[in-house]
Protein backbone atom coordinates (compact mmCIF):
# COMPACT_ATOMS: atom_id res chain seq x y z
CA UNK A 1 0.00 0.00 0.00
CA UNK A 2 1.48 3.37 -0.83
CA UNK A 3 1.63 6.11 1.79
CA UNK A 4 -1.25 8.07 0.28
CA UNK A 5 -3.66 5.21 0.81
CA UNK A 6 -2.73 4.61 4.45
CA UNK A 7 -4.93 5.53 7.35
CA UNK A 8 -3.71 8.49 9.34
CA UNK A 9 -3.96 8.45 13.10
CA UNK A 10 -2.79 10.78 15.86
CA UNK A 11 -2.06 9.58 19.39
CA UNK A 12 -0.25 10.98 22.37
CA UNK A 13 2.03 8.07 23.20
CA UNK A 14 3.14 5.16 21.01
CA UNK A 15 5.05 2.22 22.38
CA UNK A 16 6.93 0.35 19.65
CA UNK A 17 7.30 -3.32 20.54
CA UNK A 18 5.02 -5.66 22.47
CA UNK A 19 7.71 -7.65 24.26
CA UNK A 20 7.93 -7.85 28.02
CA UNK A 21 9.37 -4.32 28.12
CA UNK A 22 6.79 -2.68 25.86
CA UNK A 23 3.77 -4.40 27.39
CA UNK A 24 4.77 -3.56 30.95
CA UNK A 25 5.33 0.06 29.89
CA UNK A 26 1.92 0.09 28.23
CA UNK A 27 0.34 -1.19 31.40
CA UNK A 28 2.16 1.40 33.51
CA UNK A 29 1.05 4.19 31.21
CA UNK A 30 -2.53 2.93 31.09
CA UNK A 31 -2.80 4.09 34.71
CA UNK A 32 -2.95 7.64 33.34
CA UNK A 33 -5.39 9.55 31.16
CA UNK A 34 -3.40 9.08 27.97
CA UNK A 35 -4.13 8.31 24.36
CA UNK A 36 -1.92 5.24 24.17
CA UNK A 37 -1.11 2.84 21.30
CA UNK A 38 1.24 -0.14 21.16
CA UNK A 39 2.56 -1.34 17.79
CA UNK A 40 3.65 -4.98 17.48
CA UNK A 41 5.13 -6.51 14.32
CA UNK A 42 4.09 -10.14 14.98
CA UNK A 43 0.59 -11.59 15.14
CA UNK A 44 0.71 -11.64 18.95
CA UNK A 45 2.54 -9.69 21.64
CA UNK A 46 5.51 -11.33 23.28
CA UNK A 47 6.65 -13.20 20.18
CA UNK A 48 10.00 -11.63 19.65
CA UNK A 49 12.79 -12.26 22.08
CA UNK A 50 10.32 -12.51 24.97
CA UNK A 51 8.83 -15.74 23.64
CA UNK A 52 12.11 -17.62 23.91
CA UNK A 53 13.20 -16.09 27.19
CA UNK A 54 13.97 -18.75 29.77
CA UNK A 55 11.69 -17.03 32.24
CA UNK A 56 14.11 -16.73 35.12
CA UNK A 57 13.48 -13.95 37.57
CA UNK A 58 17.01 -13.24 38.73
CA UNK A 59 18.01 -12.57 42.29
CA UNK A 60 20.20 -9.55 41.64
CA UNK A 61 23.65 -10.92 42.46
CA UNK A 62 25.10 -11.43 38.97
CA UNK A 63 25.10 -7.85 37.70
CA UNK A 64 28.24 -5.71 37.82
CA UNK A 65 28.04 -2.73 40.18
CA UNK A 66 27.38 0.66 38.62
CA UNK A 67 25.37 -0.70 35.72
CA UNK A 68 21.74 -0.05 34.86
CA UNK A 69 21.34 -3.81 35.04
CA UNK A 70 22.35 -3.71 38.69
CA UNK A 71 20.18 -0.64 39.31
CA UNK A 72 16.99 -2.27 38.09
CA UNK A 73 17.43 -6.02 38.65
CA UNK A 74 16.81 -6.39 42.37
CA UNK A 75 14.02 -3.77 42.47
CA UNK A 76 12.38 -5.63 39.57
CA UNK A 77 12.75 -8.93 41.39
CA UNK A 78 10.96 -7.46 44.39
CA UNK A 79 8.03 -6.35 42.23
CA UNK A 80 7.35 -9.77 40.77
CA UNK A 81 5.17 -11.38 43.45
CA UNK A 82 2.60 -8.54 43.43
CA UNK A 83 2.78 -8.05 39.66
CA UNK A 84 2.09 -11.73 38.98
CA UNK A 85 -0.64 -11.88 41.54
CA UNK A 86 -2.38 -8.84 40.04
CA UNK A 87 -2.10 -10.23 36.52
CA UNK A 88 -2.95 -13.81 37.54
CA UNK A 89 0.25 -15.19 36.07
CA UNK A 90 2.01 -18.04 37.77
CA UNK A 91 5.23 -17.03 39.47
CA UNK A 92 7.26 -19.77 41.02
CA UNK A 93 9.56 -18.41 43.69
CA UNK A 94 11.75 -21.47 43.79
CA UNK A 95 15.08 -19.73 44.37
CA UNK A 96 18.36 -19.60 42.52
CA UNK A 97 21.37 -21.73 43.36
CA UNK A 98 24.82 -20.87 41.96
CA UNK A 99 26.95 -23.97 42.52
CA UNK A 100 30.71 -24.33 42.64
CA UNK A 101 32.31 -27.53 41.46
CA UNK A 102 35.82 -26.63 42.66
CA UNK A 103 37.55 -24.47 45.24
CA UNK A 104 38.42 -21.85 42.59
CA UNK A 105 34.74 -21.62 41.73
CA UNK A 106 33.93 -21.17 45.42
CA UNK A 107 35.79 -17.81 45.28
CA UNK A 108 33.20 -16.58 42.76
CA UNK A 109 30.42 -17.96 44.92
CA UNK A 110 31.74 -15.98 47.87
CA UNK A 111 31.89 -12.90 45.71
CA UNK A 112 28.22 -13.28 44.73
CA UNK A 113 27.30 -13.80 48.34
CA UNK A 114 29.04 -10.58 49.40
CA UNK A 115 27.46 -8.69 46.58
CA UNK A 116 24.06 -9.96 47.62
CA UNK A 117 24.62 -8.77 51.17
CA UNK A 118 25.72 -5.33 49.96
CA UNK A 119 22.65 -4.96 47.75
CA UNK A 120 20.15 -6.19 50.29
CA UNK A 121 19.40 -9.32 48.28
CA UNK A 122 18.41 -12.21 50.58
CA UNK A 123 21.26 -14.73 50.19
CA UNK A 124 22.69 -17.72 52.05
CA UNK A 125 25.96 -19.51 51.71
CA UNK A 126 25.52 -23.29 51.62
CA UNK A 127 28.02 -26.05 52.36
CA UNK A 128 28.26 -29.15 50.20
CA UNK A 129 26.06 -31.11 52.58
CA UNK A 130 23.46 -28.37 52.71
CA UNK A 131 23.37 -28.12 48.93
CA UNK A 132 22.91 -31.86 48.49
CA UNK A 133 20.25 -31.96 51.18
CA UNK A 134 18.33 -29.28 49.28
CA UNK A 135 19.03 -30.71 45.82
CA UNK A 136 19.76 -34.43 46.08
CA UNK A 137 19.95 -34.83 42.31
CA UNK A 138 22.87 -32.42 41.92
CA UNK A 139 26.27 -33.80 41.09
CA UNK A 140 28.18 -35.11 44.13
CA UNK A 141 31.12 -33.03 42.83
CA UNK A 142 29.50 -29.88 44.23
CA UNK A 143 31.71 -28.02 46.68
CA UNK A 144 29.30 -25.33 47.87
CA UNK A 145 26.81 -22.76 46.64
CA UNK A 146 25.10 -19.43 47.18
CA UNK A 147 21.34 -19.62 47.47
CA UNK A 148 19.03 -16.69 46.70
CA UNK A 149 15.56 -17.80 47.77
CA UNK A 150 13.71 -14.89 46.15
CA UNK A 151 14.74 -15.76 42.63
CA UNK A 152 12.09 -17.55 40.63
CA UNK A 153 10.56 -18.16 37.24
CA UNK A 154 7.58 -17.13 35.13
CA UNK A 155 6.31 -17.86 31.63
CA UNK A 156 7.44 -14.67 29.87
CA UNK A 157 4.88 -14.81 27.09
CA UNK A 158 2.09 -15.29 29.61
CA UNK A 159 3.27 -12.23 31.54
CA UNK A 160 3.56 -10.06 28.42
CA UNK A 161 0.16 -11.16 27.13
CA UNK A 162 -1.43 -10.60 30.54
CA UNK A 163 0.15 -7.15 30.87
CA UNK A 164 -1.17 -6.23 27.43
CA UNK A 165 -4.65 -7.55 28.20
CA UNK A 166 -4.68 -5.44 31.34
CA UNK A 167 -3.41 -2.38 29.46
CA UNK A 168 -6.12 -2.82 26.83
CA UNK A 169 -8.75 -3.35 29.52
CA UNK A 170 -7.61 -0.01 30.92
CA UNK A 171 -7.95 1.78 27.58
CA UNK A 172 -4.72 1.18 25.66
CA UNK A 173 -4.94 0.27 21.98
CA UNK A 174 -3.01 -2.62 20.42
CA UNK A 175 -2.19 -3.06 16.72
CA UNK A 176 -0.59 -6.37 15.77
CA UNK A 177 1.11 -7.36 12.49
CA UNK A 178 2.15 -3.68 12.42
CA UNK A 179 5.91 -3.36 12.05
CA UNK A 180 7.31 0.16 11.87
CA UNK A 181 8.71 0.38 8.35
CA UNK A 182 9.56 4.06 8.37
CA UNK A 183 9.89 6.79 10.98
CA UNK A 184 10.75 10.49 11.05
CA UNK A 185 10.42 13.59 13.17
CA UNK A 186 9.01 17.01 12.25
CA UNK A 187 9.53 19.48 15.06
CA UNK A 188 8.00 18.01 18.18
CA UNK A 189 5.87 15.54 16.27
CA UNK A 190 7.09 12.10 15.41
CA UNK A 191 5.68 9.95 12.59
CA UNK A 192 5.63 6.20 12.34
CA UNK A 193 4.63 4.32 9.21
CA UNK A 194 3.30 0.73 9.31
CA UNK A 195 2.01 -1.34 6.37
CA UNK A 196 -1.47 0.13 6.89
CA UNK A 197 -1.12 3.37 8.89
CA UNK A 198 0.77 6.60 9.35
CA UNK A 199 0.75 7.49 13.03
CA UNK A 200 1.55 10.89 14.48
CA UNK A 201 2.72 10.85 18.10
CA UNK A 202 3.92 13.28 20.78
CA UNK A 203 5.89 10.65 22.65
CA UNK A 204 7.46 7.51 21.17
CA UNK A 205 8.87 4.80 23.38
CA UNK A 206 11.16 2.55 21.39
CA UNK A 207 11.09 -0.88 23.03
CA UNK A 208 11.48 -2.78 19.78
CA UNK A 209 13.93 -5.36 21.08
CA UNK A 210 16.19 -6.63 18.31
CA UNK A 211 15.11 -3.75 16.11
CA UNK A 212 15.48 -0.76 18.44
CA UNK A 213 18.66 0.30 16.62
CA UNK A 214 17.03 0.00 13.19
CA UNK A 215 14.22 2.27 14.31
CA UNK A 216 16.68 4.66 15.98
CA UNK A 217 18.46 4.95 12.65
CA UNK A 218 15.16 5.81 10.94
CA UNK A 219 15.03 8.82 13.25
CA UNK A 220 18.66 9.68 12.49
CA UNK A 221 20.23 8.28 15.66
CA UNK A 222 23.11 5.96 14.85
CA UNK A 223 25.03 5.85 18.11
CA UNK A 224 24.23 2.37 19.42
CA UNK A 225 23.73 -1.05 17.90
CA UNK A 226 21.91 -4.21 18.86
CA UNK A 227 23.72 -7.49 18.27
CA UNK A 228 21.57 -10.61 18.25
CA UNK A 229 22.91 -13.32 20.54
CA UNK A 230 21.27 -16.70 20.12
CA UNK A 231 20.35 -19.04 22.91
CA UNK A 232 19.00 -22.57 22.40
CA UNK A 233 16.85 -24.29 24.99
CA UNK A 234 15.63 -27.88 25.34
CA UNK A 235 12.48 -28.93 27.17
CA UNK A 236 11.91 -32.20 28.97
CA UNK A 237 8.75 -34.28 29.37
CA UNK A 238 6.81 -33.46 32.56
CA UNK A 239 8.18 -36.75 33.91
CA UNK A 240 11.30 -34.86 35.01
CA UNK A 241 9.37 -32.32 37.01
CA UNK A 242 10.89 -32.09 40.46
CA UNK A 243 14.32 -33.39 39.51
CA UNK A 244 15.62 -30.08 40.86
CA UNK A 245 13.72 -27.51 42.87
CA UNK A 246 15.61 -24.25 42.30
CA UNK A 247 17.14 -22.96 39.10
CA UNK A 248 20.68 -24.29 39.06
CA UNK A 249 23.43 -21.97 37.81
CA UNK A 250 27.05 -22.94 37.30
CA UNK A 251 29.78 -20.47 38.13
CA UNK A 252 29.98 -18.57 34.85
CA UNK A 253 33.03 -19.16 32.71
CA UNK A 254 32.47 -16.20 30.40
CA UNK A 255 31.91 -12.49 30.86
CA UNK A 256 28.95 -12.43 28.61
CA UNK A 257 26.70 -15.25 29.68
CA UNK A 258 25.61 -16.70 32.98
CA UNK A 259 26.26 -20.22 31.69
CA UNK A 260 24.06 -23.19 30.91
CA UNK A 261 21.36 -23.66 33.47
CA UNK A 262 18.97 -26.32 34.66
CA UNK A 263 15.63 -24.58 34.96
CA UNK A 264 12.45 -25.94 36.52
CA UNK A 265 9.91 -23.82 34.63
CA UNK A 266 6.78 -22.57 36.30
CA UNK A 267 4.71 -24.92 34.14
CA UNK A 268 6.59 -27.95 35.40
CA UNK A 269 8.72 -28.92 32.43
CA UNK A 270 12.43 -29.01 33.15
CA UNK A 271 14.45 -26.91 30.70
CA UNK A 272 18.18 -26.78 29.96
CA UNK A 273 20.11 -24.04 28.25
CA UNK A 274 20.75 -21.43 26.98
CA UNK A 275 23.81 -21.22 24.77
CA UNK A 276 25.12 -17.77 23.91
CA UNK A 277 26.29 -17.33 20.35
CA UNK A 278 26.65 -14.23 18.24
CA UNK A 279 24.74 -14.70 15.03
CA UNK A 280 24.61 -12.45 12.01
CA UNK A 281 20.91 -12.39 11.38
CA UNK A 282 18.11 -11.00 13.50
CA UNK A 283 15.83 -13.83 12.43
CA UNK A 284 17.99 -16.92 12.75
CA UNK A 285 16.07 -19.06 15.20
CA UNK A 286 17.37 -22.43 14.14
CA UNK A 287 18.50 -25.02 16.66
CA UNK A 288 21.56 -27.17 16.03
CA UNK A 289 23.28 -30.43 16.91
CA UNK A 290 26.26 -28.51 18.33
CA UNK A 291 24.00 -26.37 20.48
CA UNK A 292 22.36 -29.49 21.83
CA UNK A 293 25.64 -31.29 22.51
CA UNK A 294 27.05 -28.33 24.40
CA UNK A 295 23.90 -27.75 26.44
CA UNK A 296 23.43 -31.39 27.28
CA UNK A 297 27.02 -32.01 28.37
CA UNK A 298 27.15 -28.79 30.44
CA UNK A 299 23.87 -29.43 32.19
CA UNK A 300 24.83 -33.04 32.90
CA UNK A 301 27.85 -31.70 34.80
CA UNK A 302 25.36 -30.16 37.20
CA UNK A 303 22.61 -32.78 37.14
CA UNK A 304 23.94 -36.17 36.02
CA UNK A 305 20.48 -37.78 35.89
CA UNK A 306 19.29 -35.93 32.77
CA UNK A 307 18.11 -38.29 30.02
CA UNK A 308 18.13 -36.92 26.48
CA UNK A 309 15.43 -39.39 25.38
CA UNK A 310 12.90 -37.45 27.43
CA UNK A 311 13.34 -34.21 25.50
CA UNK A 312 10.05 -33.19 23.89
CA UNK A 313 10.82 -29.81 22.33
CA UNK A 314 13.59 -27.42 21.50
CA UNK A 315 13.66 -23.77 20.47
CA UNK A 316 15.96 -20.82 20.19
CA UNK A 317 15.76 -17.15 21.00
CA UNK A 318 17.78 -14.07 20.16
CA UNK A 319 18.85 -11.73 22.90
CA UNK A 320 18.82 -8.05 22.02
CA UNK A 321 22.30 -7.34 23.31
CA UNK A 322 23.49 -3.76 23.08
CA UNK A 323 27.06 -2.86 22.20
CA UNK A 324 27.31 -1.26 25.65
CA UNK A 325 26.66 -4.64 27.36
CA UNK A 326 24.18 -2.75 29.51
CA UNK A 327 20.62 -1.44 29.18
CA UNK A 328 20.15 1.73 27.17
CA UNK A 329 17.52 3.78 29.00
CA UNK A 330 17.64 7.34 27.77
CA UNK A 331 16.01 9.91 25.56
CA UNK A 332 17.25 10.46 22.05
CA UNK A 333 19.89 13.22 21.99
CA UNK A 334 18.47 14.59 18.75
CA UNK A 335 14.71 13.96 18.72
CA UNK A 336 12.63 15.31 21.62
CA UNK A 337 10.09 12.94 23.20
CA UNK A 338 11.75 9.78 21.86
CA UNK A 339 12.66 7.38 24.65
CA UNK A 340 14.93 4.37 24.07
CA UNK A 341 14.47 1.24 26.18
CA UNK A 342 17.04 -0.83 24.35
CA UNK A 343 19.42 -3.69 24.95
CA UNK A 344 17.05 -5.23 27.49
CA UNK A 345 18.89 -8.54 27.66
CA UNK A 346 19.49 -10.60 30.81
CA UNK A 347 18.38 -9.64 33.46
CA UNK A 348 15.90 -7.83 31.23
CA UNK A 349 12.79 -9.78 32.20
CA UNK A 350 13.53 -9.28 35.91
CA UNK A 351 14.34 -5.59 35.49
CA UNK A 352 11.44 -4.75 33.18
CA UNK A 353 8.79 -3.99 35.85
CA UNK A 354 11.21 -1.63 37.61
CA UNK A 355 12.16 0.11 34.37
CA UNK A 356 8.49 0.41 33.39
CA UNK A 357 7.71 1.93 36.81
CA UNK A 358 10.30 4.66 36.13
CA UNK A 359 8.93 5.57 32.70
CA UNK A 360 6.09 7.88 33.85
CA UNK A 361 8.61 9.92 35.86
CA UNK A 362 10.93 10.12 32.84
CA UNK A 363 8.05 11.35 30.66
CA UNK A 364 7.01 13.93 33.24
CA UNK A 365 10.55 15.30 33.28
CA UNK A 366 10.15 15.79 29.55
CA UNK A 367 7.03 17.90 30.12
CA UNK A 368 4.24 15.37 29.66
CA UNK A 369 1.33 15.98 32.06
CA UNK A 370 0.20 12.71 33.63
CA UNK A 371 -3.26 12.56 35.21
CA UNK A 372 -3.93 9.27 37.04
CA UNK A 373 -7.12 7.44 36.08
CA UNK A 374 -9.70 7.07 38.81
CA UNK A 375 -10.82 3.69 37.57
CA UNK A 376 -7.53 1.98 36.77
CA UNK A 377 -8.03 -1.77 37.29
CA UNK A 378 -4.67 -3.35 38.13
CA UNK A 379 -6.00 -6.86 38.29
CA UNK A 380 -6.66 -9.33 35.50
CA UNK A 381 -9.45 -11.66 36.51
CA UNK A 382 -11.44 -14.54 35.23
CA UNK A 383 -8.72 -16.75 33.78
CA UNK A 384 -9.68 -20.37 34.29
CA UNK A 385 -7.17 -23.19 34.40
CA UNK A 386 -9.37 -26.25 34.34
CA UNK A 387 -6.59 -28.77 34.97
CA UNK A 388 -5.72 -27.12 38.32
CA UNK A 389 -9.25 -27.28 39.75
CA UNK A 390 -10.73 -29.94 42.01
CA UNK A 391 -13.17 -32.47 40.60
CA UNK A 392 -16.08 -30.67 42.26
CA UNK A 393 -14.97 -27.31 40.83
CA UNK A 394 -14.58 -28.86 37.39
CA UNK A 395 -18.05 -30.36 37.64
CA UNK A 396 -19.57 -27.03 38.65
CA UNK A 397 -17.87 -25.22 35.78
CA UNK A 398 -19.27 -27.68 33.26
CA UNK A 399 -22.76 -27.13 34.59
CA UNK A 400 -22.35 -23.40 34.08
CA UNK A 401 -20.76 -23.76 30.66
CA UNK A 402 -20.82 -27.13 28.84
CA UNK A 403 -17.82 -26.09 26.78
CA UNK A 404 -15.74 -26.88 29.86
CA UNK A 405 -16.80 -30.50 29.42
CA UNK A 406 -15.13 -30.84 26.07
CA UNK A 407 -11.44 -31.56 26.58
CA UNK A 408 -9.62 -30.55 23.43
CA UNK A 409 -5.98 -30.98 24.46
CA UNK A 410 -5.71 -34.31 26.21
CA UNK A 411 -2.02 -34.04 27.14
CA UNK A 412 -2.45 -30.79 29.08
CA UNK A 413 -6.18 -31.16 29.90
CA UNK A 414 -7.33 -27.95 28.20
CA UNK A 415 -11.05 -27.41 27.58
CA UNK A 416 -12.85 -25.84 24.66
CA UNK A 417 -14.09 -23.06 26.94
CA UNK A 418 -10.54 -22.05 27.84
CA UNK A 419 -9.55 -22.03 24.20
CA UNK A 420 -12.52 -19.88 23.20
CA UNK A 421 -11.70 -17.55 26.10
CA UNK A 422 -8.08 -17.28 24.95
CA UNK A 423 -9.27 -16.28 21.50
CA UNK A 424 -11.55 -13.66 22.98
CA UNK A 425 -8.62 -12.34 25.01
CA UNK A 426 -6.44 -11.94 21.93
CA UNK A 427 -5.20 -15.31 20.60
CA UNK A 428 -5.54 -15.46 16.82
CA UNK A 429 -3.18 -18.29 15.98
CA UNK A 430 -2.34 -21.86 17.00
CA UNK A 431 0.74 -20.66 18.84
CA UNK A 432 -1.29 -17.89 20.46
CA UNK A 433 -3.58 -20.54 21.91
CA UNK A 434 -0.65 -22.74 22.86
CA UNK A 435 1.13 -19.98 24.73
CA UNK A 436 -1.98 -18.87 26.58
CA UNK A 437 -3.59 -22.20 27.43
CA UNK A 438 -0.86 -24.81 26.89
CA UNK A 439 -3.05 -26.63 24.37
CA UNK A 440 -0.55 -28.27 22.02
CA UNK A 441 2.42 -27.83 24.35
CA UNK A 442 2.37 -31.32 25.80
CA UNK A 443 3.86 -34.68 25.03
CA UNK A 444 2.12 -35.17 21.69
CA UNK A 445 2.82 -31.56 20.60
CA UNK A 446 -0.71 -31.07 19.20
CA UNK A 447 -0.56 -34.28 17.12
CA UNK A 448 -3.99 -35.13 18.43
CA UNK A 449 -5.69 -31.79 18.93
CA UNK A 450 -4.38 -29.56 16.15
CA UNK A 451 -7.29 -30.18 13.73
CA UNK A 452 -9.75 -29.33 16.52
CA UNK A 453 -7.85 -26.15 17.44
CA UNK A 454 -7.98 -25.18 13.77
CA UNK A 455 -11.73 -25.74 13.72
CA UNK A 456 -12.27 -23.61 16.83
CA UNK A 457 -10.10 -20.76 15.49
CA UNK A 458 -11.87 -20.90 12.15
CA UNK A 459 -15.25 -20.75 13.84
CA UNK A 460 -14.45 -18.07 16.44
CA UNK A 461 -12.55 -15.78 14.10
CA UNK A 462 -14.91 -16.36 11.17
CA UNK A 463 -12.08 -17.25 8.82
CA UNK A 464 -11.72 -20.20 6.44
CA UNK A 465 -9.88 -23.22 7.78
CA UNK A 466 -7.08 -22.66 5.25
CA UNK A 467 -6.40 -19.22 6.73
CA UNK A 468 -5.80 -20.49 10.24
CA UNK A 469 -2.12 -20.09 10.93
CA UNK A 470 0.56 -21.28 13.26
CA UNK A 471 1.75 -17.77 14.11
CA UNK A 472 0.46 -15.19 11.63
CA UNK A 473 0.28 -14.50 7.89
CA UNK A 474 2.43 -16.84 5.90
CA UNK A 475 2.30 -19.69 8.40
CA UNK A 476 -1.05 -21.18 7.47
CA UNK A 477 -1.09 -24.88 8.31
CA UNK A 478 -3.14 -26.57 5.61
CA UNK A 479 -3.03 -24.99 2.19
CA UNK A 480 -5.55 -26.84 0.07
CA UNK A 481 -8.99 -28.33 0.30
CA UNK A 482 -9.49 -32.01 -0.51
CA UNK A 483 -9.56 -32.65 -4.25
CA UNK A 484 -8.23 -29.14 -4.97
CA UNK A 485 -4.88 -30.42 -6.19
CA UNK A 486 -6.69 -32.69 -8.62
CA UNK A 487 -7.93 -29.53 -10.26
CA UNK A 488 -11.28 -29.78 -8.54
CA UNK A 489 -12.46 -27.43 -5.81
CA UNK A 490 -14.86 -28.07 -2.99
CA UNK A 491 -17.84 -25.78 -3.31
Amino acid at each position, binding site marked *: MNSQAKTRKAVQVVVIGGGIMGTLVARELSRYELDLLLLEKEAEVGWGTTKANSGIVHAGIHEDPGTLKAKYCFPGNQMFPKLCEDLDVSFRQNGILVVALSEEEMDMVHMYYQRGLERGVPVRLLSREEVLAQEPNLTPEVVGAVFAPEGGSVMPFELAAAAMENAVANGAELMVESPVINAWAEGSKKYLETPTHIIEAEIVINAAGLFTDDIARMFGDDYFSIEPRKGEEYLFDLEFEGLVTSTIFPVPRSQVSKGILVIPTSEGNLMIGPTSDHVGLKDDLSTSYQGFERIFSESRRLVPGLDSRKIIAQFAGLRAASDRSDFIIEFSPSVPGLLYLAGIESPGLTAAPAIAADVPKMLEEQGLKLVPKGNFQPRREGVVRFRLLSREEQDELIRQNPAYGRIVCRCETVTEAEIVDAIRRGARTLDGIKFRTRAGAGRCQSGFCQPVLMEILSRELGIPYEQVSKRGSGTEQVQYK*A*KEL*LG*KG*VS
Partner: protein
Amino acid sequence: MHKRITCTVCPLSCEVVLEIGENNEILSLTGNKCARGKTYATKEHTAPERTLTTTVRIKGGVHPLLPVRTDQPIPKQKLREAMLATADLVVEAPVIMGDVVVENFLGLGVNLIATRDLDRVDQGSTESVGTKNLR
Protein backbone atom coordinates in the same frame (compact mmCIF):
# COMPACT_ATOMS: atom_id res chain seq x y z
CA MET B 1 15.20 -57.66 -20.92
CA HIS B 2 14.93 -58.36 -17.21
CA LYS B 3 12.23 -57.10 -14.90
CA ARG B 4 12.11 -57.51 -11.11
CA ILE B 5 8.84 -57.84 -9.30
CA THR B 6 8.55 -58.17 -5.51
CA CYS B 7 5.79 -60.64 -4.76
CA THR B 8 3.43 -59.35 -2.04
CA VAL B 9 1.30 -62.46 -1.52
CA CYS B 10 3.04 -63.56 1.70
CA PRO B 11 5.64 -61.99 4.03
CA LEU B 12 8.52 -63.82 2.31
CA SER B 13 8.41 -61.08 -0.38
CA CYS B 14 10.30 -63.15 -2.96
CA GLU B 15 12.00 -61.12 -5.64
CA VAL B 16 10.79 -62.65 -8.91
CA VAL B 17 12.91 -62.02 -11.98
CA LEU B 18 11.15 -62.10 -15.33
CA GLU B 19 12.78 -62.29 -18.68
CA ILE B 20 10.71 -60.21 -21.10
CA GLY B 21 10.68 -60.73 -24.85
CA GLU B 22 10.26 -58.32 -27.76
CA ASN B 23 6.47 -58.34 -27.65
CA ASN B 24 6.47 -57.80 -23.89
CA GLU B 25 5.74 -61.51 -23.40
CA ILE B 26 7.21 -63.41 -20.44
CA LEU B 27 9.96 -65.71 -21.61
CA SER B 28 10.95 -67.03 -18.18
CA LEU B 29 10.31 -66.43 -14.52
CA THR B 30 12.54 -67.31 -11.53
CA GLY B 31 12.93 -66.46 -7.84
CA ASN B 32 9.50 -67.42 -6.60
CA LYS B 33 9.36 -69.99 -3.82
CA CYS B 34 5.82 -71.10 -4.65
CA ALA B 35 3.27 -71.21 -7.43
CA ARG B 36 1.31 -68.23 -6.09
CA GLY B 37 4.37 -66.11 -6.75
CA LYS B 38 4.35 -67.13 -10.41
CA THR B 39 0.66 -66.21 -10.71
CA TYR B 40 1.21 -62.90 -8.96
CA ALA B 41 4.25 -61.88 -11.00
CA THR B 42 2.59 -62.86 -14.24
CA LYS B 43 -0.46 -60.78 -13.44
CA GLU B 44 1.65 -57.85 -12.24
CA HIS B 45 3.44 -57.80 -15.54
CA THR B 46 0.56 -58.40 -17.92
CA ALA B 47 -2.40 -56.75 -16.19
CA PRO B 48 -1.55 -55.18 -12.84
CA GLU B 49 -4.55 -54.29 -10.73
CA ARG B 50 -5.11 -52.26 -7.60
CA THR B 51 -8.02 -51.65 -5.24
CA LEU B 52 -8.71 -47.93 -5.07
CA THR B 53 -9.42 -46.54 -1.61
CA THR B 54 -10.20 -42.86 -1.33
CA THR B 55 -12.76 -40.39 -0.05
CA VAL B 56 -15.65 -38.56 -1.68
CA ARG B 57 -17.46 -35.50 -0.45
CA ILE B 58 -20.67 -36.05 1.47
CA LYS B 59 -23.35 -33.50 2.29
CA GLY B 60 -25.24 -33.30 5.55
CA GLY B 61 -23.17 -35.90 7.35
CA VAL B 62 -21.20 -35.92 10.58
CA HIS B 63 -18.05 -35.68 8.45
CA PRO B 64 -17.43 -33.77 5.21
CA LEU B 65 -15.88 -36.85 3.55
CA LEU B 66 -17.01 -40.45 3.08
CA PRO B 67 -14.36 -43.16 2.70
CA VAL B 68 -14.98 -45.40 -0.31
CA ARG B 69 -13.34 -48.24 -2.20
CA THR B 70 -13.74 -50.14 -5.40
CA ASP B 71 -15.34 -53.49 -4.55
CA GLN B 72 -12.91 -55.22 -6.91
CA PRO B 73 -9.41 -54.24 -8.04
CA ILE B 74 -9.19 -52.07 -11.14
CA PRO B 75 -6.37 -51.79 -13.68
CA LYS B 76 -3.43 -50.01 -12.10
CA GLN B 77 -3.12 -47.53 -14.93
CA LYS B 78 -6.70 -46.35 -14.28
CA LEU B 79 -5.92 -45.05 -10.79
CA ARG B 80 -5.34 -41.44 -11.80
CA GLU B 81 -8.46 -41.34 -13.95
CA ALA B 82 -10.38 -42.90 -11.08
CA MET B 83 -9.18 -40.21 -8.65
CA LEU B 84 -10.23 -37.48 -11.05
CA ALA B 85 -13.62 -39.15 -11.46
CA THR B 86 -14.21 -39.29 -7.70
CA ALA B 87 -13.11 -35.70 -7.17
CA ASP B 88 -16.43 -34.24 -8.34
CA LEU B 89 -18.69 -36.71 -6.60
CA VAL B 90 -20.96 -35.50 -3.84
CA VAL B 91 -23.01 -38.03 -1.88
CA GLU B 92 -25.83 -37.37 0.60
CA ALA B 93 -25.94 -38.60 4.17
CA PRO B 94 -27.01 -40.96 5.68
CA VAL B 95 -25.01 -43.79 4.17
CA ILE B 96 -24.62 -47.43 5.23
CA MET B 97 -21.41 -49.43 4.79
CA GLY B 98 -21.62 -51.22 1.46
CA ASP B 99 -23.92 -48.68 -0.21
CA VAL B 100 -23.06 -48.33 -3.85
CA VAL B 101 -21.83 -44.80 -4.51
CA VAL B 102 -21.14 -45.34 -8.19
CA GLU B 103 -22.30 -48.39 -10.11
CA ASN B 104 -20.07 -49.73 -12.86
CA PHE B 105 -17.39 -47.20 -11.97
CA LEU B 106 -15.53 -45.96 -15.06
CA GLY B 107 -17.30 -48.69 -17.01
CA LEU B 108 -14.94 -51.23 -15.50
CA GLY B 109 -17.65 -53.50 -14.10
CA VAL B 110 -16.80 -52.70 -10.49
CA ASN B 111 -18.73 -50.59 -8.01
CA LEU B 112 -17.49 -47.78 -5.83
CA ILE B 113 -18.88 -48.54 -2.37
CA ALA B 114 -19.04 -46.81 1.03
CA THR B 115 -16.77 -48.37 3.63
CA ARG B 116 -18.62 -47.17 6.72
CA ASP B 117 -21.93 -45.98 8.03
CA LEU B 118 -22.02 -42.21 8.05
CA ASP B 119 -24.91 -40.61 9.92
CA ARG B 120 -26.67 -37.39 9.15
CA VAL B 121 -25.45 -34.55 11.28
CA ASP B 122 -28.76 -34.27 13.15
CA GLN B 123 -29.25 -37.99 13.59
CA GLY B 124 -29.62 -38.65 17.31
CA SER B 125 -27.72 -35.50 18.09
CA THR B 126 -29.42 -34.94 21.44
CA GLU B 127 -28.18 -38.32 22.52
CA SER B 128 -24.77 -38.24 20.94
CA VAL B 129 -23.21 -37.39 24.26
CA GLY B 130 -24.17 -38.98 27.50
CA THR B 131 -24.95 -42.36 28.89
CA LYS B 132 -26.82 -44.26 26.23
CA ASN B 133 -26.98 -47.33 24.09
CA LEU B 134 -25.89 -46.85 20.53
CA ARG B 135 -28.82 -47.26 18.25
